């Protein structure tokens, strides 16, 4: 399963490297989200500083919808997904591989986006260890839940409208927990025992496990 996961992740990332959808489309989209949030909240510096983590994670969540949609969509061309199954690739491995590929792309996007957030909103950043750890587990959770739901909704014409409706409520604890733990980190009250970090870990583990177990039923069902 793990070897299959690596293969699938490598394949997906290679496709991304060649098509550059994430870099050319999703990343600019995340940036424009950051900018229009400032329109909505006006540019009073204090407000923006305070809500910066929340806006950051909202931008990530919106981008993730595009990312996971794409991760599943690439298997639909020429029935590539069925091809993988026929080759005997483990469905759990396909899930983990896709989640890993989305994770890598989202994480890179976050690194660029955090620079954007610092420049545009100007929050004081501290507690790097907590920031990085929460980002890792939050992104894992979003990727796992996202790939799972995207596959659930696939094969339907209404997919583009259905996926956000399914994913956003499910991922809302991640949004909340990541925002809160970043606020803790920015405020300098960070510790690795932060309850929000624990919640992010639980969420990531639960959805990775659920996906590995159920993915085969979704693909074959």
């Amino acid at each position, binding site marked *: 399963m793990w070897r299959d996961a690596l293969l699938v992740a490598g394949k997906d990332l290679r496709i991304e490297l060649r098509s550059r959808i994430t870099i050319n489309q999703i990343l600019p989209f995340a940036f424009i989200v950051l900018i229009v949030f400032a329109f909505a909240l006006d540019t009073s510096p204090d407000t923006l500083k305070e809500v910066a983590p929340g806006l950051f994670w909202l931008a990530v969540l919106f981008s993730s919808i595009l990312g996971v949609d794409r991760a599943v969509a690439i298997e639909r061309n020429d029935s590539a997904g069925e091809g993988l199954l026929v080759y005997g690739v483990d469905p759990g491995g396909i899930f983990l591989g896709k989640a890993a590929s989305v994770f890598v792309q989202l994480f890179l996007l976050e690194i660029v986006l955090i620079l954007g957030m610092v420049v545009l909103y100007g929050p004081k950043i501290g507690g790097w260890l907590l920031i990085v750890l929460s980002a890792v587990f939050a992104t894992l959770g979003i990727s796992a839940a996202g790939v799972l739901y995207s596959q659930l909704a696939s094969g339907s014409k209404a997919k583009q409208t259905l996926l956000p409706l399914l994913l956003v*409520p499910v991922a809302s604890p991640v949004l909340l927990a990541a925002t809160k733990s970043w606020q803790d980190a920015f405020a300098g009250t960070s510790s690795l025992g932060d309850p929000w970090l624990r919640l992010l870990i639980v969420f990531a583990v639960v959805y990775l496990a659920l996906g590995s177990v159920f993915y085969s039923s979704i693909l074959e*069902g």
Partner: protein
Amino acid sequence: MESKRYKRVRRAAGIASLLSVAVTVILGLWVTPPDVVQGQLVRLIYVHPPVAWVAYLAYGVTSIASILYLWKRTRNLRWDLLAVSSAEVGVIFTGLTLITGSIWGRPAWGVWWTWDARLTTTALLFVLYLGYLALRRVPADSHQRAVRSAIAGLIAFIDVPIVHQSVVWWRTLHQGATVLNPSLSPKIHGEMATTLLIGFISFTFVYIWMLMQRYQIADLEQRVLDVELEQLIKERRNEPGVGSSQIESTEDVDNADQPSKV
């Protein structure tokens, strides 16, 4: 066709819910006294908690039916029909929970809505299961749809405690549970407690009746589909030059509108 016994039970549930709701109305509006603190407002307690209970009961039934469908030994399309019927009733009752809570919150807390843990969880729950119902509307063959929605239903149910925990940490303002508080000694007494209990029973009857009614409709819809499909196959078989082998493949029509960039 609907069996005679099913019909009888459904009728009985309908009559029981009518009667018990009538009793709840009479007890709740006329017999019980107003509360010392909340005054007439307290009468909402005979509606709001029972409605919320039915919502959770309905989602519980959906989850159990989903598990029974996913488990290969008990796999039967009837579990799927039960799951969707219960989820639909659950969504209605979650909506009612939000509405009655809002009506109560306005005079009691001074606002229609507050970002309290339970309110937020309930609102998210409402959207989660709306998503479940939307997923079911996606055209697919019945087995595929059943598997997918069973998984979605199960995930939604597993997500509820996570959502709840996160929101509890975020905010808490709602009053603690009245009956199931940790010490398990109900904080209300006498005829108010009796009325509340009857409220719970009556809304459970309403749930059972609605569930059976909805299940019946789902079952009939399924049968209509089957009959129509058979008819179509028969018609095509009778067309000149068409063998039976050509009709069986139902390709995923969605592939066509995907951009092929890779």
